[in-house]
């Protein structure tokens, strides 16, 4: 198999504050700066290789995060998670060159940047001005992550009809860390292929996307899942890798730190290293690898963590 290593692309900054804020933007060490067209010259004078921001070029995304909606997300206290990973997967299948845009409230820009980076998409973030430092810190962390992008890993194929119902199914699969790829036709290399509207997966069942996602999980079985996350309801994972090494991106949508996260990844990987945003000297703990799976604990994580596993 020929493996294509993908370029690492850091999210850009859409900044519509006056050029007088240039020193703050410099401190944030932004690589790609997008400004209003009428400020372009002023920003260039400040030494920025800025580009004019054209909203028509981007797909606008909802702000990532969680909402605690009583009696909606689950019968217990499991919150509603707003995450865009499923949109990226769907978009990737439809148009490789799609670019995304986040305009997010205070405290959400680092999460937006991490989400886009973890999914390997081209995105621009428009933060609350008070968030510039936090966004700069996240960009610095993303820059520090070694290695090229590896191919995304999934073991469920979803044959997408483009409908809103299927979109919600994709959303809830991602919400449950059921890693899927949008495919045009069944892929025998995958553990499970799902065509909504087929006798096995009637369209009427997709009208209840939560139940449908549960059914997909049952069909796949938990033993075959590529990743499991224990200890948090609001951390979603994305896997990428090749045969001897994989990388797991973990995004915490909850807004607070997670104290203790147990992760199970399918397959034996005796060596693991952790990089966690905002935390230094944090290492994976209680590491164990069997023939079937690798497990480890992340003692603490903020918005984003990356774990590299090797054979």
């Amino acid at each position, binding site marked *: 198999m020929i493996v294509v290593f993908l370029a690492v692309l850091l999210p850009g900054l859409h900044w519509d504050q006056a050029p007088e804020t240039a020193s703050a933007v410099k401190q944030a060490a932004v690589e790609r700066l997008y400004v209003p067209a009428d400020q372009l010259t002023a920003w260039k004078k400040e030494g920025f290789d800025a580009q004019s921001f054209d909203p028509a070029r981007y797909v606008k995304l909802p702000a990532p995060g969680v909402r605690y909606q009583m009696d909606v997300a*689950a*019968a*217990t206290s*499991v919150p509603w998670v707003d995450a865009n990973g499923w949109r990226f997967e769907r978009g990737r299948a439809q148009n490789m060159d799609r670019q995304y845009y986040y305009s997010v409230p205070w405290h959400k820009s680092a999460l937006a940047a991490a989400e886009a980076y973890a999914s390997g998409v081209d995105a621009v973030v428009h933060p609350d001005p008070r968030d510039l430092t936090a966004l700069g810190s996240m960009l610095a962390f993303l820059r520090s992550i070694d290695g090229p992008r590896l191919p995304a890993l999934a073991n469920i194929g979803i044959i997408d009809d483009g409908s809103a119902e299927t979109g919600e199914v994709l959303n809830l699969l991602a919400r*449950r*860390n059921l890693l899927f790829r949008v495919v045009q036709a069944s892929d025998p290399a995958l553990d499970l292929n799902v065509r909504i509207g087929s006798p096995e997966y009637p369209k009427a069942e997709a009208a209840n996307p939560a139940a449908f996602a*549960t059914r997909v*999980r049952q069909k796949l079985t*938990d033993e075959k899942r590529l990743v499991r*996350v*224990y*200890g*948090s*309801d609001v951390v979603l994972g994305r896997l990428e890798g090749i045969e001897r090494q994989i990388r797991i991106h973990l995004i915490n949508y909850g807004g607070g730190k997670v*104290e*203790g*996260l*147990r992760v199970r990844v399918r397959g034996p990987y*005796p060596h693991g290293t952790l990089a966690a945003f905002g935390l230094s000297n944090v290492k994976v703990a*209680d*590491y*164990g*690898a*069997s*023939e079937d799976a690798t*497990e480890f*604990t992340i*003692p603490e994580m903020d918005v984003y963590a990356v774990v590299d596993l090797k054979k």
Partner: protein
Amino acid sequence: MYRREFLQAAAAAPVALAAELHQDVPKYRVVSRFQPVAHPGMPGPYGGKVVRVHAEKCIDEKSEKVDVPTVREMMAQGMQGLTGDADTRDSWARFFTVADVVGIKVNCSGAPGIMSTPEVVGEIVRNLGTLDVKPEQIWIYERFKNQVDSAHYDRYVPAGVHIWTAENDRGSILSYDPNTYVDVNFFGEEDTRSNLIRLVSERFTKIINVPNMKDHGAAGVTGCLKNIAYGDFSNVARSHSGYKTNTYSFIGTLAGVEPLRSRTVLQIMDGLRGVWHGGPFSPDRKFRFYPKQMMFGTDPVAIDRLLLDVIDDKRKAEHSVSVWDRSMTNVKSGYGYDDNPSINRFIREPGHIEYASALGLGIYDVHKIQARKIEL
């Protein structure tokens, strides 16, 4: 590094027996590196034996002030009655040595209204001291910090005794053993594991279980089994949803996990106070009552079987629905339960005690329980 993992095969036969009691028992997967032992702490050397000590003056109902000398005498009589020794120290020495690291599993879910009474816990610690168990080898432990903080155990035990909680922040899994857990999917929840407190698997050599006498909205009652099971594992509240609770089979399954089962060697049920409705919490004093008794044994099933009658008799006396009531007309999930003893929050599962018996954790048949009552 390859992790050794095995199912508790020795428990397979009792599980099959227990499953016959109830048809819709979830599929449990117990993962532990600890082998079952020939003579586990539960049911222990005194299977089916319960010594109940009642003392009218152990607590003043109005002030809730505890009479420490009476508690001391209750414990002496209870332990001697259990073991048959004439000297209390000899009774304790049957269970503990100077080398033991002892966990005292308190119950603080109703604190500060009701909890393992600090004076009772203090007396347990004092008795361990007579065996020269050092304070530093004694751990009073529970899951939630905010509950334990309100009990102030530190005022009743010598300096050096640890007062420890697993979750200083609710939901943290750091204090649980990642390699000892029960995996089960009740309602499609994503996190299907409940892990054992790490101190139990890595530090304690013995555990004393100190539950209260309480009604429980899901389990029917909460006594020895519920306290040692739900009180030693993470992520257990997921077993209830809507009107349905899986306490019927989950409690016994958790209590049977090694090494918890082997290391829990003594049950001291603190019934100075009790809760006859609204449990496990005690938000309203009108549902508190005063059994003024303690039960001693090694068999959690036998003690809990007697507890069932204590709670249900009290509920009957108060003209509220029985803990055995399964009528959906009385179940109003989320509405009125805390204030109305004729409303059930869940379909209660007091059958969890019989289920635990079928798992081999003790004697359920009341005719086979050797109950001895001592009146002070």
